[in-house]
């Protein structure tokens, strides 16, 4: 993963966020992925979302497993603290980091191989534990980095570039999340920044694990006829009926008023998500209804995208564990070591 420094091309003055930082300040090293790889578009969306949110770069921890997708944290927010870990283990490491320091924004980036095969157990348990983090699966239906083997998200009937047509059932992270009690589930398409950026911003504000499954075509190994993770397939089969806007906590309260047919959900930090359009009878807080809707479209060969499910009422790992409001790693030794008198007293119990 060479870290090539991006050339800084002088341009017209760039817009600044609340911290006075430009989008450049949220970029990272130059990508070394294949030209046209969906993952690079997701990197751009993450860069944008964090810039728009004005999250201080040093208060961001970006973690990943192993894969082309997992290389991407080097390509955004160079001033953030990064951890490119081992294949499939990102969720476990993020859990420990979040436990030790709840003050940071955790952005986890993974692939469909990383999350749905080798790391499936950790993903499932991070969801159950409600680790406060954004968990992005850059889903291309293949193992890009090991050259195109089908992954567990490949649909039945998918034809790989080499080898046999897939006949085994796929694992759908959204349906999985629904069954595990996930509280924030979204699906998007790497080619749709307009949809992805608000979802990412809402995910950062979510009080728990926000899982975003982003269909992200692998131009080298899975963008051909017969793939259900190609640019063409997504353009032809994407259903974008669930449209949500994210309004950060700082913005005008008037924006929270939602008109007829709209529905708003206030996030833990006071931000608001407004569902601008949802299909008839769709309730993004009703687990059963969401599952039925996703399944129905799936059987029609369609891919539903958008912020599909949201539950802002559940406690996160920190609330469940009653950890202090500030980071555990900042507790002083005096606070955590009971000292000599307490030990001497305790010794009497062992007589």
């Amino acid at each position: 993963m060479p870290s090539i420094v991006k050339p800084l091309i002088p341009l017209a003055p760039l817009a600044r966020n609340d911290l006075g930082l430009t989008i450049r300040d949220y970029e990272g090293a130059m990508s070394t992925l294949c030209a046209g790889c969906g993952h690079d578009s997701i990197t751009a969306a993450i860069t944008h979302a964090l810039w728009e949110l004005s999250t201080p770069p040093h208060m961001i921890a970006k973690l990943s497993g192993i894969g082309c997708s997992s290389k991407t944290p080097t390509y955004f927010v160079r001033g953030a603290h990064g951890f490119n870990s081992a294949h499939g283990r990102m969720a476990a490491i993020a859990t420990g980091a979040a436990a030790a320091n709840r003050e940071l924004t955790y952005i986890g980036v993974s692939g469909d191989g990383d999350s749905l095969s080798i790391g499936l157990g950790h993903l499932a348990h991070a969801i159950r534990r409600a680790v406060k983090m954004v968990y992005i699966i850059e889903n291309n239906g293949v193992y890009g980095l090991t050259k195109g083997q089908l992954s567990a998200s490949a649909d039945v009937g998918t034809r790989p570039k080499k080898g046999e047509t897939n006949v085994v059932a796929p694992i759908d992270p959204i349906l999985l999340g629904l069954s595990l009690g996930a509280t924030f589930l979204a699906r998007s398409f790497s080619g749709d920044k307009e949809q992805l950026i608000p979802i990412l911003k809402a995910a950062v504000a979510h009080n728990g694990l926000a899982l975003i499954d982003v269909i992200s075509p692998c131009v080298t190994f899975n963008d051909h006829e017969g793939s259900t993770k190609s640019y063409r397939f997504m353009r032809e089969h994407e259903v974008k009926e669930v449209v949500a806007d994210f309004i950060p906590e700082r913005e005008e309260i008037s924006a929270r008023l939602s008109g007829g047919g709209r529905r708003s959900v206030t996030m833990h930090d006071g931000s608001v998500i407004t569902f601008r359009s949802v299909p008839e009878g769709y309730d993004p807080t009703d687990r059963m209804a969401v599952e039925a809707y996703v399944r129905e479209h799936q059987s029609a060969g369609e891919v539903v995208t958008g912020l599909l499910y949201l539950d802002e009422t559940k406690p996160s790992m920190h609330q469940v564990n009653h950890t202090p409001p500030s980071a555990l790693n900042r507790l002083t030794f005096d606070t955590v070591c009971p000292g000599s008198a307490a030990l001497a007293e305790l010794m009497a119990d062992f007589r």
Partner: protein
Amino acid sequence: MTIDVTPQVRVNDFAIKLANVNGTGSASANGLIMQAIFRMGIPVSGKNLFPSNIQGLPTWYEIRVNAQGHTARATEYDLMVAMNGQTYRDDIEAVRSGGYVLYDSSWPLDADLARDDVTFLGAPYASMCLEAFAKPRERILMKNIAYAGSIVALLGIDLELVRGLLAETFSRNPALRDSNELALRLGYDYTTANVACPLPFRVAPMDATTDSILIDGNTATALGALWAGATVSGWYPITPATGVMDNFTKLCATYRRHTEPASEPGGEPTVVNDYAIIQAEDEIAAIGIVLGAGWSGARSFTSTSGPGISLMNELLGLAYYTEIPAVIVDVQRTGPSTGMPTRTQQADLMLCAYASHGDTRHILTFPANPAECFEFMVRSFDLAEHFQTPVMMLSDLDIGMNDWVVPAFTWDDNFVPDRGPVLSNEDLAQMKEFFRYSNPNADFVTARTVPGSAEKGAYFIRGSGHDKLGHYTEDPDKYLEVVDRLKRKHAAAAAHVPAPIIETRPGAEVGLITLGSCDLAVREAVDLLGQAGIAADYLRVRGFPFADAVADFVRAHPHTFVIEQNRDAQLRSMISIETGLPILSMRPILAYGGFPLSAEHVVTAVREELEN
């Protein structure tokens, strides 16, 4: 063996074994006996030889009393408390000639079990309890306290002291206290009425345990973690390590939980835990959690046994190469595979020392008893942060799950933890640029930052090849620069791990090297060999990498033996690998059947080898 016809009185020097059925409540009765002897000021050990089963299989408990403190496992029993019909035959056979068997005479013993060189002492515990207690469960449980009453009489244990212990234990439940008291009296009175008490081997008060405690290694380890300031742990249940986290959880609830007043008037006060204990989905996640927290600057640890270490291998290599502190407790049990989960061994030495693919080597500490579990746990956290690397503390089932008499733990309030080189934002402000793996200190450690530090301190951890700047590399020289420093860093730890304990005798040509829970048996063997005219020196390794003294010790002795509890002589191999000494310059003495080592095993092996 000759029959002992004129029994000599032996005070504070005997061993008894109790045979029970698992899950019938015998553990508390057996523990009561041991605790009573301890409270009488006499050195004592209790070893639980239990099955991997919840109820029904045979289980044994061995108590050894020895005024000199030789309380390693005994192989000869003066008294067998045979309470398990399934194992009568073997149990009766195990008593030394001239010894005694205590059994439940509610049922007659088969005639073919009789031995004329031992004395059978029967007492009708089941019948007495049937009569004295109404509830079926109580009738079963109280049989145990009833035989304990007999043992109190037979060994001359202070009855009032035992009554006091029962009163302490059941201070909140007078009904249960009364039942226990009654059962104790049933056994005690029956035996005093029918047997000339005490037996020729017996206890007499001493003052050898005044400043001691009775504690198991897992509890001591948890105490060490708490006092060392650990705030995050990830773990997955496994025998014999579970007790570490069970105890850590309990201790945290006592010492690290406080209630904050309501933030607004009329609101609820909130509970705040200054810790996070996460029961993980497997050991891979457990070590992942520890690394995430260690990277973040929290003291974090996990506890497991061999199978868990196997699973953790990949991430241990990641932590080694990316230089993340972590403490891992391995309470060893027998392998390979699931092995015998309730039996002890020291067979994870090489697994831990060189865990993970590629060139990896780790820092290890080897406690010998619960006191060292407490001490080394604190040391392990310091080592992990000083050297920014995983440190594994290798306890074992014998240390972890048995109660040991050890000096009471103390704490120095002036203790300052060694957090290693961690840059603050002020430090960063003084620097032109920060590079993660540059500017090593005298121990070859480079300063780190933790997530959340100022942007200048941000860097990208990667398990892939990186140079001293922390950047990705595939360049051989830049790669070598980092991995060679890691090797030197590991070597530098030799001066920081707990130093070996060395005890010499004038003119000794025999040198005994050992580690961990072999300690007591080997020390006793040194005494026994001395009595037989063989002077032996003693060295106990307490950390890895090894101090130079280990190699010097081998060179100084024409006959060096390495005594350990595994089949493949792993410690011997490691000494040879690390020092370059020929492997044949050391002879192995091995015990790996799953039971703790005895002095007799060592003495026999040394003598046989010397005679050859």
